[in-house]
């Protein structure tokens, strides 16, 4: 019965896409699935128009909010798209192992040469797009999560440099508190703002391998000393909660991420550690404020020098499902500096490029350029871990665990045990 229902769904989706796929058989045409509706979709369509003009190859863009799911459903109906932008590396790995997607630089006739990829992307990002040693996904449209937002005048009046080490960071929090500015505005209602914070700590303390083992494979348990250390750093930053957190524990737990950014923009609070995409959120609510003149960000402090210059990021991996000449041409073009620069400079929906040949100067917003450069030049990278772990961990247990820590920073051991208990069963599914 269930299979029947699922089949029904598949048939339904397949039929709804039938005209598109029928046309795709025709001539030189590439179908691409992304998550980008709205302004990003408009920008992406404009980028594709440039490709069509140069090569005569039509690009059909299908946008769907469930863009990680749609290619799987289309593939199980026998009509996968040619390319898709995949926001979840976990699904990418699963599809690679199922043979749904095609390795890009392996085989006798690779889609992309090793030289081409290495001439455009850092090794850390190439590793991130690889599954079992083969390169499947070119990362694009990135965001850096290893930054903290602050208002420029708060920052400059206090007269401190951006805190480079953890000790500097804690000292900076103390100075803010001394100045009467609650140091941290966290939006704990949106649990992912806390997990981003934790992921930065963990990547920097334990490095990408351990990070992978903690979130993806669960070979490292949540009670591991490295995890405890990261949780303790988190607890250190937020305690005592009365003076470190804007609004105290309760106020923090009731606040969403946009309100937290507003508090920083208002000068009510000092810092908000969250991703580079907050720039546009801030400007939407505070028109006329420029970045980095009125507000800006600094890099998350380094805790472990062994993993200095590490970046937690989000982004889309370009994956290839069908091996046809026009598809190859399109994906190579998409990964190259020309298309990446076009995407970066769109007026509506500009996307940050991880290609290091795209200069930080091309961005209309200098802060975007800084974030893009941070990702492109990172020595160690990791994808947002809460998106890598099963939903019960990355979307719930980590949220509530870290919320517990905001409420009671002394409960590191209990929080670690709680997440481990959930993880114990969550990875079986």
């Amino acid at each position, binding site marked *: 019965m269930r299979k029947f229902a699922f089949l029904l769904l598949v048939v339904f989706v397949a039929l709804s896409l039938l005209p598109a796929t029928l046309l795709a058989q025709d001539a030189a045409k590439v179908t691409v699935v992304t998550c980008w509706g709205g302004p990003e979709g408009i920008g992406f369509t404009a980028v594709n128009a440039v490709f069509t003009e140069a090569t005569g190859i039509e690009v059909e863009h299908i946008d769907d909010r469930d863009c990680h799911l749609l290619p799987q459903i289309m593939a199980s109906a026998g009509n996968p798209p040619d390319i898709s932008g995949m926001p979840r590396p976990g699904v990418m790995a699963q599809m690679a192992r199922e043979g749904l997607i095609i390795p890009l630089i392996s085989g006798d006739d690779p889609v992309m040469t090793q030289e081409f990829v290495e001439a455009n992307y850092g090794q850390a990002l190439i590793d991130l797009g690889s599954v079992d040693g083969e390169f499947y996904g070119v990362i694009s449209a990135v965001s850096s999560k290893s930054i903290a937002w602050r208002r420029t*005048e708060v920052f400059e009046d206090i*007269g401190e440099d951006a805190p480079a080490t953890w000790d500097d960071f804690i000292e900076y929090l103390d*100075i803010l508190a001394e100045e*009467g500015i609650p140091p941290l505005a966290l939006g704990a209602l949106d649990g992912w703002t806390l997990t981003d914070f934790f992921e930065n700590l963990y990547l920097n303390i334990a490095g990408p391998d351990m990070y992978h083992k903690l979130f993806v494979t669960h070979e490292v348990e949540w009670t591991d000393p490295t995890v405890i250390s990261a949780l303790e750093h988190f607890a250190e930053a937020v305690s005592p909660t009365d003076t470190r957190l804007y*609004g105290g524990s309760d106020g923090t737990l009731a606040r969403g991420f946009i309100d937290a950014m507003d508090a920083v923009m*208002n000068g*009510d609070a000092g810092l908000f550690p969250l991703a580079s995409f907050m720039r546009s959120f801030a400007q939407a609510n505070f*028109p006329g*404020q420029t970045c980095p003149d009125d507000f800006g960000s600094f890099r998350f402090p380094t805790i472990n020098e062994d993993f200095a210059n590490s970046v937690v990021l989000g982004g889309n991996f370009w994956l290839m499902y069908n091996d046809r000449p026009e598809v190859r041409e399109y994906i190579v073009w998409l990964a190259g500096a020309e298309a990446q620069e076009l995407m970066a400079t769109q007026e509506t929906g500009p996307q940050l490029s991880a290609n290091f040949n795209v200069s930080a100067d091309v961005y209309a917003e200098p802060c975007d350029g800084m974030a893009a450069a941070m990702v492109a030049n990172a020595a160690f990278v990791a994808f947002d871990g809460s998106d890598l772990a099963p939903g019960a961990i990355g979307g719930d247990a980590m949220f509530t665990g870290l919320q517990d820590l905001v409420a009671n920073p002394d409960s590191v051991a209990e929080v670690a045990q709680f997440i481990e208990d959930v993880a114990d069963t969550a990875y079986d599914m």
Partner: protein
Amino acid sequence: MDAQSLNLNRPPSPTEALITITRRGPIHAILLIIGIVWLVPSVGLAATSFRTRGDISASGWWTVASGSRTVTDQIWELRVLASGESGENTVVAGDSISGDLLTDAVEGLPAATIGRVRIQQIIGSITVEAFEQPIEIPGVGAVTVQADGAYDFAPAAGYSGALVADIEAATAPFTAEFQLQGFESIQGELEIEEIGESERVPRAGKISVYDDGSYVFEPRQVSLAHSKRRSTRPPCLTRHSRFNTRWSAPAVPY
């Protein structure tokens, strides 16, 4: 039967009307309270829907009608109390203060203590309800208001701030608004480590001391910079009304 219907048609006498109203009082009160409680969120939603996102996050929706809040200036006073002598300066926020430190204090840098810094800000306001009665303000002093609007201020021991009142020619019975200056004093020793380099004075600003004993003090401008966006927002009120750290003296029932 006839009498009764006649009775009903007769307009109620004032006494009867009064009885009806007083008997109905609780009914009206209950309905009024419930009505207000139920109306407030709707009105809030309506008022909020007309505001920009920035305004929504900056002030409550009920301030739409009342307009902007009072703007007060930040007043800074820097006193240097080294070697028993003091220099004094008062400045409205935004300017910088410069003056001379006692040269003695600067000798032997980079480790001399220059003294104590006292910062004053306008923080609160009080309402006076009775003339010619001294009003105690804890930690600050006592103020006595005369019926002609004049007032005396007797500072408490250890308090050196001022009190400013804006009293219109008073008529009885009397309510007058006061503006108080001060009462958040920050004192501390400050090590000057390098000549000519600016040092951070916690919660106050930056000070640079030169080898001739002169200094420049720049009050911090954090909240003033907001005025780019909302010029009506008082800097120190913003900072201090955040979570009820507003000066607590108004709690005294005047």
